């Protein structure tokens, strides 16, 4: 694999006396996909928000290597730089697309938001870029002016995704992106994610409790139980030959 772009060392966070995340180390390469699996409450989403720099850890640190090849410590990074990175080099896809989509802003407005935040000032070009992205993820470009509240769940999720991809990020963090969609829509979205990963060379971290999703998209997997990483490795290796009792349970319960 190529250069590492994200590194976490000894990451820990407590909610009161509860250890939500404890002593997590990880490293992600350019273009690589890491899945974080575990049951509800195991600290997956908390870990993701720590990796995104959205929360400050109590222990450890997260470092990100930007386009110019400079390592930045996300815990000490200035808020201004963090927002710039979040808009240019990162994407963050949430489980509930509605929570990130504004009902009074059209699809084109959502896709153009990052561009306008970076100084795009040509309406026609912003709208055209939005349409190109819609076509790329099999959305009807003629619906660019519609409110996302008129879109289906799968379309809303795709809209959320391309609103992130429009500035060509290098790292996309996804929190349960396919949960809550029906099976056929899920399958289509997964196909799309797989394709975009390859086309754009995206590094992705995907939080999921669905082993099928992890198996399809990820190169590596982390298994979390009660805030700790209990097993890690290549996806096929971990799922075909699980070592930790929890992973064994997880794998058998699916198969």
């Amino acid at each position: 694999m190529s250069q590492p772009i994200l590194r976490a060392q000894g990451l820990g966070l407590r909610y009161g006396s509860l250890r939500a995340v404890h002593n997590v180390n990880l490293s992600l390469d350019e273009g690589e996909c890491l899945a974080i699996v575990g049951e509800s409450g195991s600290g997956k989403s908390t870990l993701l928000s720590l990796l995104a720099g959205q929360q400050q850890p109590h222990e450890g640190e997260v470092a990100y290597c930007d386009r110019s090849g400079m390592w930045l410590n996300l815990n000490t990074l200035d808020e201004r730089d963090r927002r710039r990175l979040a808009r240019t080099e990162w994407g963050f896809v949430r489980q509930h697309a509605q929570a990130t989509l504004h009902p009074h802003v059209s699809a084109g407005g959502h896709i153009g938001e990052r561009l306008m935040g970076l100084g795009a000032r040509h309406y026609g070009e912003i709208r055209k870029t939005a349409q190109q992205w819609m076509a790329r993820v099999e959305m009807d470009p003629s619906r660019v002016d519609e409110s996302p509240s008129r879109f289906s769940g799968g379309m809303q999720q795709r809209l959320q995704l391309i609103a992130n991809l429009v500035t060509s990020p290098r790292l996309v963090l996804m929190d349960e992106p396919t949960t809550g969609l029906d099976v056929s829509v899920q399958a289509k979205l997964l196909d799309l994610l797989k394709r975009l990963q390859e086309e754009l060379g995206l590094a992705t971290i995907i939080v999921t409790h669905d082993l099928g999703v992890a198996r399809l998209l990820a190169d590596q997997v982390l298994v979390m139980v009660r805030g700790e990483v209990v097993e890690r490795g290549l996806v096929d290796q971990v799922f075909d030959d699980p070592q930790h009792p929890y992973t064994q349970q997880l794998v058998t319960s699916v198969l």
Partner: protein
Amino acid sequence: MTPQLPFAYLDDQTKRMIRRALLKAVALPGHQVPFASREMPLPYGWGTGGIQVTAAVLGPEDVLKVIDQGADDTTNAVNIRRFFALTTGIETTTTTAEATVIQTRHRIPEHPLKAGQIMVFQVPIPEPLRWIEPRSEETRRMHALRDYGPMQVKLYEDITQHGTIATSYDYPVMVNEHTLMSPSPIPKFDNPKLHQSPALMLFGAGREKRVYAVPPYTDVRSLDFDDYPFEVQRWPQACAICGADNHYLDEIIVDDAGTREMVCSDTDACRARQDQT
């Protein structure tokens, strides 16, 4: 003058507090400065912010003009003008050129302002980002980081829905190429008058407890798109009373048959033009 009240109604400590906030506002063009807004003898929404700013800047030599929707003779304008005449004994006027302080709601006079004049705006909602971000903590952070993309999204949506930037009043501006500012609910027709004005512009929001300012000769740019540039309102007809074709016009119904006329909203400018011709 009513002897038992302090000059301009507010006590000296309060006026000093407001003036301190105003000095800070002038030093940071467009930046909203909090101040300890007082209860005033009129309800919120009627100009409590503007009236406190006016009270803080008025001196015994000042000449005050008050307009509401451009007119000197509407209830709000008449009452505020009389209030200050009673509490200060200073001279008042309806002529823009004679005034040193002009308190306004919704308009900037047509007659060009000059150095030494102070405009005081009554502001209902000082925060231009409020529509997209309801949390004040976050809007303050957006200002600090100059994270103004969402404001552009609002204009994008205007074009998407109406084919043109339909925002016609309270049209957002960048002050000094640095701070995003709400120019108060003036029509966008008046936005160009803020740019490089020789007069000092002060804005007061009583309910929201904020003041802000545009110092004289400051750049004020209305936001727009390269392919949808900022434009002010134009009317096909001239004022039915004075014949001006370069003033902001209001539509009024003049009889029971629903006959409409377009007339100047600035009553002083309209009268001045009638006198000339």
